[in-house]
């Protein structure tokens, strides 16, 4: 397949709903992992430090 403007347009438009859904689910998954793996441990550390002070 040649890389033309039309071909690229077709590539994006093909299964567009599925692609949007995939991006939304990926963002949600990233947010969940961020929340559980980074944000919550940071909060825990912060409160432990404050309690020690």
């Amino acid at each position, binding site marked *: 397949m040649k890389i033309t403007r039309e071909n690229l347009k077709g590539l994006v438009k093909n299964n567009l709903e*599925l692609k949007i859904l*995939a*991006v939304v689910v*990926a963002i*949600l998954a*990233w*947010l*969940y992992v961020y929340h559980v793996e980074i944000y919550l441990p940071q909060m825990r550390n912060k409160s432990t430090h404050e309690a020690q002070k």
Partner: protein
Amino acid sequence: MGNTGIGFEFYWLDLLDIAFLSVLFYYLFLIIRGTKSVQLLKGMIIIFLATFLSRMLDLRTLNWILEKVLAFGALALLVIFHPELRNALVKIGESSPFEKTAGLSKEKVTEVVGAIFRMAKERHGALIALEGKVGLADYVPSGKIINGEISRELLLAIFNPTSPLHDGAVIIAQNKILAAGCILPLSEKMTFNPLVGTRHRAGLGLSEQTDSLVLIVSEEKGFVSCARNGNISYNLSVEEITGILNETLGTDIKNGK
């Protein structure tokens, strides 16, 4: 990108992380689209979101229960999505550059095409699987080994309604009719044409699980269909079928072997 000032840090690498995740989810959705697994996946996403919300709102008991459900759910996923995971791994293996397509010479293509259109004319049902990169040896034991040269006459004899082997599928591999009367896996697609029967469902099923090209002759309608990559095309002409065979089994035919 650094700290965005809205409570969390976001870096360029995270954007790459999300991009990779999106591609992964997209292909997962493509694989399970139109199957029963869609409902299961929706259920899993709802439980996942509920767990996330319960954690954010600090609803401890609900969160404890949902986390346990998710932990068991991860194990259950392996069992529930077993066929889809299998298909995905097969598809990853298919794209290996070290594998060769099982060839079919130009003469043999003519024999196969001639046989299926003769059967369509006479309204004799037929199911012929042409092996791709993924081997079909798993399905051979369910039928009878033929190991014969491909010929129009042999195919017509196998699918003659009085033949004891006419109900199953013929498997063609390495330029030979490897076996006949083989049982193929049925497709679980719910969006399936209600006008065609089990033979078509079996052809589609095999094309979902392997990269085989499956030719199907409808006994009732007398038309020829072709299933590949989990999609099925109905009522094809001689030129269309020959074109598909040329395109799919490409190199050997172009070389005129």
